[in-house]
């Protein structure tokens, strides 16, 4: 695979050429610094961008236009990535080799318009659609309780502090959304464009120079060039005595989330050791948590770890019976301690390393992975694939034990079900 970077003045275009696919992947990312109040705008902004158009009057017309150019798959989201919020459009469309000449350009233009050419009326987003979307978003927030895993996550985020500030509670978010106007949202959009760092990535069986010309013809980006926003957030403290919050619900199952913080994580640990730690503790079916909580004690169907290495946060998720909470918590604590003591087999360490090596080889098999891998190098300073392989090979059991000592349980949230 060959990649090329084009400096387009106020943004960078990256082309990644591979002849393994019948499709082309496009990613348009605009990165801004994470701030507490971004939550007020972000959920509304991507909803407006993806469902309105300056060119088409209705969603049906947008969809018809999409099918007319052979139905690209696309989505727009904001992704929280460390200290950044990334407005991201990702799309896959069939290469014009399999459709019609000129379709690559038509697809890129159609997709880029969602981000760069939104429907703006009187210095605000389309008022009618804005009010509909706003009401539906508020209803969505109000119905979070109907979805136990989502609700537990949302409540957990209220209880655990991830940044220098406390995140908005669900009630606060609802009030902020209620007070939002279409003009304020448009101001936020302009801020994203003006202050954000834009990068465009295109992979597939493409001619880089032709793609460059297509982008120059079809993308009008009015923002300025900016340096990369800060990305990594280092946790400075944790609750010495973990906060344990138990909320009763009318559910059958109880949803447990345990949040841990990592203090003084080195760059090497962030890139390599933390991943192996996470997989050994709660990655695959042979991880310590799966073997102990699920297989030996039959206490759950799912239990797994989730790692956010840019924030130094680990989370453990499990679906259990409420009456088993103490037992499950003790078992999890025991396995976290086992990580510190190195009570895991060399075979398990080798297995997770092999899984990692395989994932590196598989990157070339998936266009979104190709782009994601490349993005991680640019955004977070990840090493190139070959270096990653070498460095991961050097991680020892002692490295993992040392890292395990830096991990502390900070917040525990249990959405307790009591319906039999």
């Amino acid at each position, binding site marked *: 695979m060959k990649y090329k970077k084009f400096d387009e003045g106020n943004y960078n275009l990256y082309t990644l050429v591979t002849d*393994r696919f019948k499709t082309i992947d496009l990613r348009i990312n605009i990165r801004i610094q994470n701030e507490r109040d971004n939550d007020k705008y972000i959920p509304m902004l991507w909803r407006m961008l993806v469902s309105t158009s300056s060119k088409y009057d209705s969603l049906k017309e947008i*969809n018809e236009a999409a099918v007319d150019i052979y*139905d690209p798959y696309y989505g727009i989201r904001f992704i929280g990535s460390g200290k950044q919020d990334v407005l991201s459009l990702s799309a*896959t469309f069939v290469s014009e080799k399999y459709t019609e000449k000129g379709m690559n350009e038509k697809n890129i233009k159609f997709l880029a318009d969602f981000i760069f050419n939104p429907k703006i009326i009187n210095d605000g987003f389309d008022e009618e659609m804005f009010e509909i979307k706003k009401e539906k978003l508020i*209803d969505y927030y109000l*119905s979070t309780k109907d*979805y136990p895993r989502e609700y537990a996550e949302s409540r957990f985020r209220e209880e655990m502090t991830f940044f220098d500030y406390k995140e908005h509670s669900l009630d606060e978010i609802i009030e902020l959304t209620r007070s939002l106007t279409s003009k304020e949202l448009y101001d936020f959009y302009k801020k994203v464009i003006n202050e954000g760092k834009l990068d465009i990535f295109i992979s597939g069986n493409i001619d880089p120079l032709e793609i460059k010309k297509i982008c120059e013809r079809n993308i009008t980006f009015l923002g300025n060039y900016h340096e990369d926003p800060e990305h990594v957030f280092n946790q400075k403290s944790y609750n010495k005595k973990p906060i344990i919050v138990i909320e009763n619900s009318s559910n059958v199952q109880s949803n447990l989330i345990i949040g841990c913080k990592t203090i003084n994580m080195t760059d090497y640990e962030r890139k390599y050791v933390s991943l192996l730690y996470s997989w050994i503790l709660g990655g695959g079916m042979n991880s310590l948590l799966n073997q102990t909580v*699920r297989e030996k004690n039959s206490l759950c169907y799912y239990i797994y770890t989730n790692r956010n290495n840019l924030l130094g946060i680990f989370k453990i998720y499990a679906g259990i019976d409420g009456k088993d909470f103490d037992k499950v918590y003790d078992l999890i604590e025991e396995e976290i301690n086992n990580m510190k003591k190195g009570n895991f087999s060399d075979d398990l360490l080798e297995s997770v*390393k092999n899984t990692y090596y395989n994932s590196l080889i598989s990157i070339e098999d998936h266009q979104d992975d190709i782009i994601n891998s490349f993005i991680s190098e640019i955004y977070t300073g990840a090493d190139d694939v070959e270096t990653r392989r070498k460095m991961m090979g050097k991680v020892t059991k002692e490295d993992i034990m040392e890292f395990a000592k830096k991990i502390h349980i900070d917040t525990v949230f249990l959405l307790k079900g009591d319906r039999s």
Partner: protein
Amino acid sequence: MKKLSYEKLDLDIYTETLKNGLRVFLCKIPRNEIHARMTAMFGGSTLEFKLKGEKGFTKVPAGIAHFLEHKMFEKEDYDPLQIYERNGASANAFTSEFITSYHFTGVNNFFENLNNLLRCVHEPYFTYENVEKEKGIIAQEKKEDLDSVYYIVHDKALMNTFKNLDYKNTVLGSLEDIASITKEDLYNTYNTFYHPSNMILTISGNIDIDGTMKFIKDYYSRHDFGKAKEIEIKEKDEPTKVVKEKEIIYKENQTKEIYINYKVKKNNKLDDRYLSRIYMNIYLAMKFSGLSELSDITTKDKNFLSGINARMEEVGNFYILSFNVTVKDDTDMAVKLIDDTLKDMNFDEHRFDLIKKANLNSLILSTENVGEICSMIVNQMRLYNGLVTNMYFKLFNLDFDAFKNFIKDIDLNNRCVVILEPKKGDN
């Protein structure tokens, strides 16, 4: 070994039926990874069966196929998942109403992984203790569904749609079903459905076709599964009418969830089952996809908190057209809108052409992924007992008038509606 080519899709399949009846499908595409999938043609909707020559039918609890899927990973002296993980491969299994599949994806040690897959499905090891242990795990899997508003209405709609067919049971079974399963049930079921002649092996990705086929044949030359016996599934007459036309469930909830099943007797106008399914799916897409008027209605109407999800499944002699939507207040309006939309037999030819184009695009995309290729082959074998290698042109040549003719007489008068309402006061 026979080579079959999917026209216009750059996709070649090498296939052979082994002496023991196992059907093997191999597909090489330019990827580093390999996906292998062993599928038993047995799923959650079969609960009464026997082998030809046996006296009575065996009846097993609902959820047996799924329980069996869990237990196939348990062995007396080794752990199949450990072997996959040691090789850096990811592995899993799933059970649907019709099939149970075991699969892995990996880039290294392919033959060791493949050997592991074959052993995994051919070496049962059920004990009283390991069956009891699994009940707690599967009960937790089920409990998640019991808290899901979608599954609550979906599962109730199944029971209210079918009187006799075992399809009315969920794939996981109820908590009581799960608790009642024994190792004898598992062995009975395994011995009936897991003979190679009732299985399909599909592999796609970076494979050496000849070497892989040789490996598979060598494996089976060392393992004798006895003569294949014909499986008899107990036939059950299913009335055309649904069991219950409307039911309201009350639960502590903020929104209202609707699930509707239309039970449509097949019209048998076409011998081509592939085409029949395509027509039914296009019918739903014409009326309910993002290309329909409905997409703007549900986007703009504040009563709709989700789009209307529509899908079709063939069950026995019926097409089941299913609809699911979340609303804020007015359930009657949503149910009526779905009913009116479905019964409106006016179709727009331009939209028909657009949907055709979208289907062709999906077809190309489905050949990009090693797992999806295996899924496609298994589905075609299950539904058509053969590969539809000319499916691109079948789609390309779809005719609007033939479509309208196929759809025009379908009977949409048998339906069941299930609504989940927020609990208030004493209900």
